[in-house]
């Protein structure tokens, strides 16, 4: 997917989120580090363009809640977790991530959110759903569904980190 394709997908996602979140004034977007944060910003912008609402956004780093870190080796850099003012109690939280794959990242995000409070409702919006779930987790809003061959990878690029906007399908090596 090139930049325009991504922008269109985000546009569709914005529509879906607005539709699902009954009361947008109590809607909070939380992007998952790293690229989910930028996508959440893009999504918030898309929603603002649609209905003029400036949404509260925040970022969530789930490193400390991962279930696959107990190995010898370098530790991932932990990003800043920052919830919007007013917290998440009683609000509708929409978690935003770039790729939904095994579902473990989202599981970690849900665990972390539970330590922050109790949203009245939690939604999941992802740019790419590539299937391959290992947990019973589904996205409420999907930008694009993609079939990935064995061993392949989906790489999402965002301007802040990668210099451009897009989605690449990387095939398995050799």
């Amino acid at each position, binding site marked *: 997917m090139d930049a325009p394709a991504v922008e269109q997908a985000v546009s569709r996602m914005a529509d879906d989120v607005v539709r699902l979140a009954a009361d947008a004034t109590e809607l909070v977007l939380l992007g998952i580090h790293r690229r989910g944060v930028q996508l959440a910003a893009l999504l918030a912008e898309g929603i603002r363009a649609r209905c003029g609402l400036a949404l509260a956004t925040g970022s969530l780093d789930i490193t400390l*809640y991962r279930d*696959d870190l107990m190995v010898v080796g370098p530790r991932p*850099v932990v990003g800043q977790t920052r919830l919007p003012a007013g917290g998440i109690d009683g609000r509708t939280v929409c978690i935003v991530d770039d790729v939904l794959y095994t579902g473990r990242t989202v599981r970690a995000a849900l665990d972390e959110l539970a330590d922050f409070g109790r949203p009245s409702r939690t939604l999941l919006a992802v740019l790419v759903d590539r299937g391959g779930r290992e947990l019973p987790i589904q996205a409420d809003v999907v930008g694009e569904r993609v079939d990935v061959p064995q061993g392949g990878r989906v790489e999402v690029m965002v301007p802040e980190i990668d210099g451009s906007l897009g989605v690449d399908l990387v095939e398995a090596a050799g």
Partner: protein
Amino acid sequence: MAQELVNPTLGKDLVGLEELTREQITAILDTAETFKEISERPVRKVPFLRGRTVVNAFFENSTRTRVSFEFAEKRMGADTVSISTSGSSVQKGETLVDTARNLEAMRIDMVVIRHASSGSAKFLADRIESHVINAGDGKHEHPTQGLLDLLTIRDHRGPIEGLKVCICGDVLHSRVARSNIHGLKRLGAEVAVCGPLTLMPADVAELGVHWFRRIEEAIEWADVLNVLRLQLERMKAGFIPSLREYNRIFGVTRARVEAAPRDVLILHPGPMNRGVEIDSDVADGPHSVILQQVTNGVAVRMAVLYLLAGGPAHDGEAST
């Protein structure tokens, strides 16, 4: 996640700052920075070390450091056990070797050790597979204190590089001073010390550190003062004639601080001897960041717990 950013590894143990690189120290500080908010959450806990056991083996009394480590460990989700021995009835040497063997046999993941003998942290680290964190070994190093001092300085004065930091007091007997000197120099600060020559280590100049013989000169020069606790025993052992004289000549007093050409930041590792090395109105005054040091201490210790390389060797878990 493609291109995951990773931190440099710290190796199995944290024994001192002397052997850390600039990248390693920066990684600890940056990680501590992101961990600060965990202590502000409604649930002050993350599950990172859930199921792991950390033993705090404190052979030297210290409530504040031990409690700070306990908070850090619990906030990272670990189970903690604290052993305190006063050491008076037990031969120190036997205890250390036997402690190492017992800890190994109990499959402890991490040990935080404080001991009165220099080199005891390395002694333990060399003999057990668990990760060892030095919480102060004799006069050698107190790396987490050095790190939280660095973080606090960075919070208030920005990048350490080029900053002028003076460590005031009994440098000779101070592990906090040594850790500070190594950490500050590694990050590019200019480091000086100030105090009577009797309390300065031989060859301190060889560490790249200037000695100010008067506190006024030090305050005139420094952006930051780290004021060390002066112990009563030094007077009894003849290093200084009296605490009163020490305060008169070397004390960080309000008058001296206000005469400084710039807004000097004041740190102290605690506990303070008010009226000896530092006056109360300085310790409680606007230049002092002593309480922030304590807050940063928990975040820094959490960061160290996070960054020490993975599980112990006998664990053998594979990733999923």
